[in-house]
C-alpha cells in the first residue's frame, strides 16, 4: 500500500479532509464534519492518525472534536475546558498542538489547556493567565486569542505560545511560569517612543524551524521576523517582501533555512494579496532573500486573503505546500511552491490547513 496524505481543513462551517497519494495530483474531498461548527484548527496526531478539530459554536460553545477513522465518525468534548465560575467563559478553541500523546489547546479569551487522554478531559495550564502582564492583554481583530502553540521537539517542559495582541510567551517548566519573548518585534500602532514594548505585540503566527528548536519564525501584524535564540531576540526579515503584513507562516519539514509566507497588501487596504495577484513567498536563506512563487495561481482579480493558520507544508519529498483562502479555495503545490493547482473552490471561509502522512 502507498502512503496517503491528508490535508486537514478548518472552515467557518465545519472541517473538511482532502486526501491524495504521494503524487499529490488527484484529490478527494470529504466534509463538512463537526456538524458544521465553526472550526478554527484541525490537526492530526502523526503517531496515531487521530484527527482533532477545535472550534466554538454560537449556541453550544467551545469544544474539541476527535475522529479516529479519518473523519467517518466524530466525538466531541469540552470537559474541563473552562475558566473558574465568574470569569468570562471560553468562547472558542483556536489552536491545537500535540506531542507524545499530550494535546494542547489555545482558547479565546486567551489561555492554554492540556489533555493527556486524547482530548476527553482538559486541565487549565494556569500559569499563563497568572502572568503579571495579563491585565494589559488587548484583543486583536480576531479577539483575544491564543492562536499559536509551538512545542519543543525534545523537551516537554518548553512551550511557546502566540497571543493576539499580547505577543509571544515561553515557558521552561511545563507552563508554571512564563516570560515574554518579544524583543525586537514592533508595535507600529503604539506611540513612536513605545513601539518595542515587552508585551502587547500583535503576533499573527509563530513556527519552529525543523531540527533547530532555537530558530523560530514569526509573522506579525507589523513585520516578519526570525529568532535564533528561542525567541529571546527577533530580527526583521521583511526586506525583499512586498509588504510587512500577513497572517500565516509555514516552515519547511526538513530545511531550517526555508520558510513560506503570504504577504498581504496591508492591514487597512483590504488585506489582499498585492495587486490582486496570488503568490506565496519563499526564502531558502532564512529570510535574507525572498522569491515569489505564483505559477498556477490566479494572476488577475485575485482578492485573496489567507488567515493565520491556513498554510502548511507536508513531510513528503519534495515538500508540498498548501494554503486556503478566506474565499474558500484550497491550493496545493507538490514542489516546494514552484507550481500550484487548486484542490477545491467554493468551500466556506478557510481558517486552517494542516497535513499528515498516513503510512500503512
Amino acid at each position, binding site marked *: 500500500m502507498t502512503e496517503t496524505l491528508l490535508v486537514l481543513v478548518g472552515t467557518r462551517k465545519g472541517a473538511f479532509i482532502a486526501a491524495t497519494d504521494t503524487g499529490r495530483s488527484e484529490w478527494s474531498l470529504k466534509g463538512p464534519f463537526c*456538524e458544521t461548527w465553526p472550526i478554527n484548527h484541525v490537526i492530526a496526531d502523526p503517531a496515531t492518525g487521530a484527527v482533532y478539530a477545535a472550534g466554538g459554536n*454560537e*449556541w*453550544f*460553545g467551545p*469544544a474539541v472534536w476527535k475522529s479516529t477513522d479519518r473523519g467517518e465518525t466524530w466525538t*466531541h*468534548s*469540552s*470537559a474541563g*475546558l*473552562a*475558566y*473558574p*465560575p*465568574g*470569569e468570562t*467563559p*471560553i468562547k472558542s478553541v483556536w489552536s491545537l498542538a500535540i506531542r507524545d500523546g499530550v494535546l494542547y489547546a489555545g482558547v479565546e479569551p486567551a489561555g492554554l489547556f492540556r489533555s493527556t487522554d486524547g482530548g476527553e478531559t482538559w486541565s487549565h495550564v494556569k500559569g499563563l493567565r497568572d502572568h503579571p502582564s495579563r491585565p494589559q492583554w488587548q484583543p486583536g481583530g480576531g479577539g483575544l486569542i491564543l492562536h499559536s502553540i509551538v512545542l519543543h521537539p525534545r523537551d516537554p517542559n518548553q512551550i511557546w505560545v502566540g497571543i493576539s495582541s499580547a505577543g509571544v510567551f515561553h515557558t521552561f517548566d511545563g507552563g508554571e511560569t512564563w516570560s515574554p519573548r518579544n524583543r525586537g518585534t514592533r508595535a507600529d500602532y503604539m506611540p513612536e517612543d513605545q513601539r518595542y514594548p515587552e508585551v502587547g505585540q500583535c503576533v499573527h503566527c509563530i513556527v519552529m524551524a525543523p531540527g533547530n528548536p532555537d530558530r523560530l519564525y514569526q509573522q506579525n501584524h507589523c513585520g516578519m521576523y526570525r529568532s535564533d535564540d528561542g525567541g529571546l531576540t527577533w530580527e526583521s526579515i521583511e526586506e525583499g517582501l512586498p509588504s510587512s503584513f500577513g497572517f500565516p507562516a509555514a516552515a519547511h519539514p526538513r530545511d531550517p533555512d526555508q520558510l513560506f509566507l503570504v504577504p498581504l497588501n496591508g492591514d487597512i487596504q483590504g488585506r489582499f494579496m498585492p495587486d490582486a495577484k496570488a503568490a506565496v513567498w519563499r526564502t531558502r536563506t532564512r529570510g535574507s532573500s525572498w522569491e515569489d512563487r505564483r505559477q498556477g495561481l490566479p494572476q488577475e482579480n485575485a482578492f485573496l486573503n489567507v488567515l493565520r493558520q491556513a498554510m502548511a507544508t507536508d513531510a513528503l519529498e519534495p515538500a508540498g505546500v498548501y494554503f486556503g483562502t478566506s474565499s474558500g479555495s484550497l491550493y496545493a503545490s507538490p514542489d516546494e511552491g514552484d507550481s500550484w493547482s487548486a484542490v477545491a473552490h467554493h468551500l466556506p471561509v478557510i481558517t486552517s490547513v494542516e497535513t499528515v502522512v498516513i503510512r500503512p
Partner: protein
Amino acid sequence: MSRAEPAPLAAPVLVRLPAALAPLFPDAPRRLEVHAATVDELVDALDARWPGMRDRICDSTPAIRRHMNVFVDGERVGLDAPLAPGADVYILTAISGG
C-alpha cells in the same frame, strides 16, 4: 413541597431538547421526563445521562448560554428557576449565527 429536594414520587418535569442537540448526543431522545427541582438540577440530570450535555447548554459563569433559551411553562427562565412537578420545559436554540 421542598424545592431543593423533590420527593422521589413527585411528578417529573417534561423536557423537550432542541433538534440541534440530537446529532451531538445521538442516544438522547427529543422528549423525556426528568426529576428535578430547578433548571440547574435538570441540566445536571441531563449531563449525568449524557456526559457533556451541560457544557452545550450552560457556560462556566455558570449561566444558560447566551444563544440558548430555557422556557418553563411558557416563561423564559435562568438556571436558578424552580421547577414544579409536572412542569413543561423547552430547551431551545435562539437565533444566532451567520
